[in-house]
């Protein structure tokens, strides 16, 4: 691999060829604010918050889309750069609701974090603000377009990761919006509610509806776990407050899935506390389902299956297994049907 040496804020650093200035900074623990950048998505260079000053270059180039070159001299924190970033943040905040006290994103909001760093309070520019309806017609995602900073990451997550392309920009200039076609609410679009858009939103424009009001980011502990819904093995973080799971958020380091999840994994965890959840086997006695011990239930099944096989033959029995089980469990199920029962009547809920 070819290495380059460049100077960032007076410090000489070496990075592999093909590295952006932003990555060069981050590899060397030099902080650069970004809103529209995500390593798993293509870069747009749109928010302009990551601008730096580079010797010999016109204007202030955005570090996320500028390639590092040999001998490059970069300044990331000089007054000119910081002032430019401050103006950009002021512009964003001027068109953003300041209801941070009740915003679900508070504590995990990139805009708030940078506004704090750069001393931006939203007082400099007074003028028109967007006033768009809040989309709350579905049980999973709460969408407040007035908080959207038009970074476009949700659009890319939907098209580049999920392959759905439900979202795109519409209109232009100050009137630009992000949303499904015709600006329909999510539940009237073809959205699958995988929530990838939520996982990349840097502000409170897209949040997990189930978590609203249940806890602040600093109050929850994140417990990495494997999704129980199917055998793919996706990892995510359970958000636990006071011993109770209040929701799920992506764990970017998840080895199988990254930030991607499906609707069940991301929004199906309410089953944990569901009244309908089965916690013991039930046996129907005199027409009524009665809780039973595992041994009793398994004995009953074994006896009944044996009887049926004897009387009606193995092909009178069929089994349907579940995507909720692991691949190993599903393998055992079919092995059991073929080798023990002696039939090929085995199927799976996620076969098609």
């Amino acid at each position, binding site marked *: 691999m070819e290495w380059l040496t460049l100077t960032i804020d007076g410090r000489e650093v070496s990075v592999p060829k093909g590295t952006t200035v932003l990555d060069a900074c981050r590899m060397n623990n030099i902080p650069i604010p970004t809103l529209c950048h995500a390593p798993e998505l293509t870069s747009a260079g749109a928010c302009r918050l990551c601008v730096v000053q580079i010797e010999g270059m016109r204007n202030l180039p955005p570090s996320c889309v500028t390639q590092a070159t040999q001998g490059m001299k970069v300044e990331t924190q000089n007054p000119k750069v910081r002032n430019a970033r401050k103006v950009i943040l002021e512009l964003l905040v001027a068109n953003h609701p300041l209801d941070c006290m009740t915003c679900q994103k508070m504590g995990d909001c990139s805009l708030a974090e940078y506004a704090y760093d750069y001393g931006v309070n939203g007082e400099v520019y007074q003028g028109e603000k967007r006033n768009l309806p809040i989309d709350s017609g579905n049980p999973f995602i709460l969408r407040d377009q007035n908080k959207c900073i038009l970074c476009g990451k949700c659009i890319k997550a939907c*098209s580049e990761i999920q392959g759905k*392309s*439900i*979202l*795109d*920009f*519409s*209109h*232009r200039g100050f009137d630009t919006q992000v*949303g*499904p*076609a*015709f*600006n329909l609410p999510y539940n009237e*679009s073809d959205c699958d509610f995988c929530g990838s858009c939520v996982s990349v939103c840097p502000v409170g424009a897209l949040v997990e509806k189930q978590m609203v009001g249940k806890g602040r980011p600093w109050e929850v502990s994140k417990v990495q776990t494997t999704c129980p819904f199917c055998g793919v093995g996706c990892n995510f973080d359970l958000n636990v407050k006071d011993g109770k799971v209040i929701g799920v958020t992506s764990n970017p380091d998840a080895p199988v899935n990254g930030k991607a999840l499906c609707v069940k994994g991301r929004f199906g965890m309410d089953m944990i506390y569901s009244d309908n959840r089965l916690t013991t086997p039930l046996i129907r006695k005199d027409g009524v389902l009665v809780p039973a011990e595992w041994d009793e239930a398994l004995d009953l099944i074994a006896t009944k299956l044996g009887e049926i096989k004897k009387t009606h033959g193995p092909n009178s029995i069929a089994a349907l297994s579940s995507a909720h089980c692991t691949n190993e469990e599903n393998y055992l199920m079919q092995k059991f049907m073929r080798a023990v029962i002696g039939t090929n009547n085995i199927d799976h809920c996620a076969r098609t």
Partner: protein
Amino acid sequence: MSTACEELVDPKQIKLDQIIDKHKHGNGPLIPILQGAQEVYGYLPAHVIKHISKATRIPVARIYGVVTFYAQFRQTPVGRNLINICLGTACHVRGGAKIVETIEKELKIKDGATTEDGRFTLEVIACIGACGLAPVISINNEVHGRLLPESIAGILAKYE
């Protein structure tokens, strides 16, 4: 029987499908298709946008994004007469803003709107390129130049 079948097929839809067929195998077909569709329908209703999406396999959100980006595309029917008020620099310097005000007051509509009776649609545009005649408006592509606020009412009266 055959006449009954023909009646069931919307002639506009047939034209639209011809336009889509003509362009869809070429490169970058979307904008010419939308332009053709708008010529057929007069505007781009939602069902047309969805139909184009299905036929071209371009996501409907992307098409909607394109439709709302370009000034040429409209999503509501246009009135019987389309007034384009030029606000190019030359027209502005020679009093174009007052022409806009006068027409807006006269028709009681704002830029982009259509009068309730469907008689006029008003659009302020950047430049017709008839700067020598500034200020100008064009109604149904007919250019009226060297305008004064007091001449507006007389010009509008010519269009039913």
